[in-house]
């Protein structure tokens, strides 16, 4: 099956200019998403995964944050060259986003029906002014809100956490976007509700063939829901490739350590593998590779120079000096 490339991010750089210095939150990140494909951006807090998403949406907090370089090509068009007016037409219609906490994305003083219908009433959508009640009910039914029609006049506080997140999903997919970005969509939900929500997300994706970017810190969620993975550390991509291959033989020591540190449901009670140290402060990054102070396989060259992204096989690549040396031999 030939997959059409939907989004391609090239060498994206989003910096924050603060009084204490320049924070390179996203520093030269590249990846692509095809139609109907799920891409995971995984990493710890502060690694730049959420800022990458906000950069694509062009919603980086201004004026401190600015995208200073790179390209974001959505179906061949560079989003960074668009005006704010043009971006407003694209958001919701072509690219949509779901945030972690549904309570923060919903307005507590408006009814659910009102908030979902807003997506249809926006400028540029089909209906302008007329009744959109039918569409609202239909989209709420698509995200499986039981007795949707009766619940239109309810407020967010009358919904459970899982149902609220479904409402947020309904707003996001209301206009059938081509790309959906979900930023930690299930972190605030229980496992049983997380399972229901992720299945729903996959089903919606199958129906509309949209591209999905799932941002998460949970490598188990990635394994079950995504085709490809991009692992980030301190603003840079350290490894990317097909989920199956990356999980089988992680090429970067950081990915490998993360996999080992994960508690598994099958293994017996024992001491967990632990990664020493803490993620670095982005204002005081160590010279060379950002991971070397915590890396069990650190070499001298790691302290001196940042390793280039090296192709491992096919579309798999990782940024580590270990790969370089093996290649040269």
């Amino acid at each position, binding site marked *: 099956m030939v997959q059409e490339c939907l989004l391609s991010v090239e060498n994206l750089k989003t910096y924050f200019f603060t009084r204490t210095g320049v924070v390179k939150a996203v520093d030269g990140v590249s990846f692509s998403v095809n139609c109907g494909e799920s891409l995971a951006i995984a990493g*710890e*807090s502060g690694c730049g995964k959420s800022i990458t998403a906000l950069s694509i949406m062009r919603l980086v907090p201004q004026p401190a944050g600015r995208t200073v370089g790179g390209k974001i090509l959505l179906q061949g068009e560079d989003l960074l060259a668009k005006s704010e007016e043009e971006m407003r037409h694209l958001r919701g219609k072509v690219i949509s986003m779901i945030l972690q906490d549904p309570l923060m994305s919903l307005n507590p003083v408006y009814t659910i029906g009102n908030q979902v219908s807003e997506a249809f009433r926006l400028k540029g959508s089909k209906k302008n002014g007329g009744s959109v009640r039918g569409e609202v009910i239909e989209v709420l039914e698509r995200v499986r809100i039981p007795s949707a029609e009766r619940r239109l006049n309810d407020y967010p506080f009358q919904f*459970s*956490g*899982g*149902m609220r997140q479904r409402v947020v999903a309904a707003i996001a997919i209301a206009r059938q976007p081509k790309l959906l970005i979900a930023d930690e969509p299930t972190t605030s939900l*229980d*496992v*049983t*509700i*997380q*399972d*229901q929500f*992720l*299945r729903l997300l996959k089903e919606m994706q199958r129906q509309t063939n949209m591209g999905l970017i799932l941002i998460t*810190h*949970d*490598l*188990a*969620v*990635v*394994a*079950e*829901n995504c085709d490809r993975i991009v692992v980030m550390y301190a603003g840079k991509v350290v490894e990317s490739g097909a*989920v*199956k291959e990356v*999980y089988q033989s992680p090429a970067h020591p950081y990915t490998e*350590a*993360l*996999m080992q*540190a*994960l*508690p*598994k*449901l099958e*293994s*017996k*009670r*024992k*001491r*967990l*593998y*632990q*990664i*020493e140290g*803490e*993620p670095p402060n982005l204002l005081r990054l160590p010279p060379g590779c950002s991971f070397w102070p*915590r890396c069990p396989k650190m070499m001298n060259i790691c302290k001196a120079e940042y390793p280039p992204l090296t192709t491992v096989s096919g579309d798999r690549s990782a940024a580590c000096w270990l790969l370089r040396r093996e290649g040269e031999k």
Partner: protein
Amino acid sequence: MEALLELRDVIKHFPVHEGGLLRRKYKMLKAVDGVSLSIDRGTSFGIAGESGSGKTTVARLILLLESATSGSILLEGKNVLRFTRPETIWYRTRVQAVFQDAASSLNPRMRIRNLVSEPMEVQHKELSREAIRAKTEEMIHLVGLTPDRLKMFPHELSGGQKQRVAIARAMTVEPSLVILDEPVSSLDVSIRAQILNLLADIQERKALTYLIIAHDLAMMRHVTTHIAVMYLGKIVEMGNTEEVFSNPLHPYTRALFSVVPRPEPGRVRTTPSLKGEIASPIDPPAGCRFHPRCPQAKADCKQSEPCLEEVSPGYQVACHFA
């Protein structure tokens, strides 16, 4: 083995009102509805369950942050709920807690030194300043921090370091039971293993007993020796961690295990998603509380409520079909 802490038929109902000022009606939110458990000295006892299952209320009852509606809590055989004030103060040196969000359990205007020494100043007024100083430094060393952190404020520390300070604070009065309520769920993946290993080391060195409350089942398997699974204020399954994980008997436990995502790409899930959501503890379903979501529910489950029954020594399940 000797039981350190025992809960006997503990019930906690919160009154909630609905309706306006004139037609106000009071109803009972049954947060904990008859929980009995026994924690042996030196073990790590886990309580798992979804939000709304009452697991945190159990912890708050043990810590005397809520007063139980009925039932008894026994520490080394003595009923804690009948304690006089001086006895209660003594009890608080025996039982300490570490909560989920370290940032909100540390006073932002106090230095780390004062945060760690505060419990000793309250509980052991007889201690000299030098003794408290020495103990504070010992504690900060115990949790793997350097003494230069003592003069800092909480905001100067990372999330993992703050949780270490919260652990040091709980350990200063040398408790015998430490309640860990979601001790790592607010931390990053690479830091979680560090904190869990640290807690295991401290347990070994100080011969502590842990009560761990968490929703992360994979983590529970690694850190607990015994586990109780709660659903809507009741324990549905309880036993040795190894046994419960290798062969869960209650349909709810089985469903929980099947929905935990695993880091194995391409795993084919055989069981369907668990339907619906946890019911309201104000009007829990009649009969077995799990029956509206249970794939195996029969007519019997809607009427009679199953009791927690022993299926093998030390292993209890509350299901008609187990």
